[in-house]
C-alpha cells in the first residue's frame, strides 16, 4: 500500500509522493523517480520548525542588546529563538522596540508577579495600603501598625501616605497575638 501522501509530511513531485524534510533539516534536492528527497541539517544560527520543502533554513533573529533585547529562549535547529526586553522595559509592537515600563503613580502599586516583556499593571492601593512613590516595580505597602509599636495613631494613613504614629509611648504592653502583620 503506497504511503499516504499526507500534506504535512509529503509533497508531490514528478507525480510521486515524496517525503518532506523534518524540522531542523532543509530540502537539499528534490526526489527523483528513483530516489527520495535529500535533506541536510540547518547551518549555524539557522532553524526550520516544520516539516518542509524549503531550499534554505531560516536565520535565527538577533536578540540585540543594543535594542535592550535579551534571549529568553536561544532556540535551536528546530525552534526559533525568542527575545524579550530587558528588565524595566516591555516590547511595544507599534515601534517594534523596547519601551520603558509605566511607573505607577503614588496611590497605585505595580501588580505582582511582574511579567517579563509586559508593561506594568498599576492597581489602586486598597484600604490599609499606600504608595507614596512613582515606581514600575513597587507594590502598595501596608500602613504601619502603631499599636504594635505601642504607639497611638497621630495621623490616619491614605492610599498615598503611611499612618503617622504619635511619638510618645503608651504605658500598656501590646497584646501578643497582634504581632502578625496585615497581609
Amino acid at each position: 500500500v503506497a504511503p499516504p501522501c499526507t500534506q504535512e509530511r509529503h509533497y508531490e513531485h514528478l507525480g510521486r509522493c515524496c517525503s518532506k524534510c523534518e524540522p531542523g533539516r532543509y530540502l537539499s534536492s528534490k526526489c527523483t523517480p528513483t530516489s527520495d528527497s535529500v535533506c541536510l541539517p540547518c547551518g549555524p544560527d539557522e532553524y526550520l520548525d516544520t516539516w518542509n520543502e524549503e531550499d534554505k533554513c531560516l536565520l535565527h533573529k538577533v536578540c540585540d542588546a543594543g535594542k535592550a533585547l535579551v534571549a529568553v529562549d536561544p532556540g535551536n535547529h528546530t525552534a526559533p529563538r525568542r527575545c524579550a526586553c530587558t528588565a524595566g522595559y516591555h516590547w511595544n509592537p507599534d515601534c517594534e522596540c523596547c519601551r520603558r515600563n509605566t511607573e505607577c503613580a503614588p496611590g497605585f502599586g505595580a501588580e505582582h508577579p511582574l511579567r517579563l516583556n509586559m508593561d506594568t499593571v498599576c492597581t489602586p492601593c486598597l484600604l490599609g495600603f499606600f504608595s507614596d512613590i512613582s515606581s514600575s516595580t513597587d507594590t502598595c505597602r501596608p500602613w504601619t501598625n502603631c499599636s504594635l509599636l505601642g504607639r497611638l495613631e497621630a495621623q490616619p494613613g491614605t492610599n498615598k501616605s503611611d499612618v503617622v504614629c504619635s511619638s510618645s509611648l503608651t504605658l500598656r504592653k501590646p497584646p501578643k497575638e497582634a504581632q502578625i502583620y496585615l497581609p
Partner: protein
Amino acid sequence: HLTINAANIPTGKSIFTLSSWYHDRGWAKISNMTLSNGKLRVNQDGFYYLYANICFRHHETSGDLDSEYLQLMVYVIKTSIKIPNYQNLMKGGSTKYWSGNSEFHFYSINVGGFFKLRAGEEISVQVSNPSLLDPDQDATYFGAFKVQDI
C-alpha cells in the same frame, strides 16, 4: 546580497570599513562574485546595480551617547589592485540630534546606483558610528546584481 554578521559588529564611532558579512545564511547569498574579508569582488566585467541599506539604533539601556549630535553615514567604495586608494561610489546619511531623554533612536539610510565594474574590482562599505549598527539581517545589508555585459 550580503547581510551584516551580527556576531562581529565593530565598536567605536569613527568611520570603519565593515569586513564581516554573511553570504550564506538567511537572505544572504552570493553567485558569480566572491567575498573576501568583507570585500565583494567582481569576477565578470559588466554593468551592475549596487545598493546598500544601513540601520543605526540606540537604546538608553546601552548608556548615554558620547554626544547627542551625530553624523550617521554610509560610503560604498570601490578598490582595485590596480588603483591604490579607494574611490567613493555612493554616499548617504544624515546629521542627527539624538536627545538623551528619548529611550530609543533609529535611522536608516539607503543608497543605490548603476556602475560599470571590471573583474578584480572590489566593493566594500564604510559606515560611521559602527557600534550603533542594527545587526538584523533586514536592517543592514548591501549587494549587487549584474544587469548588462559591457
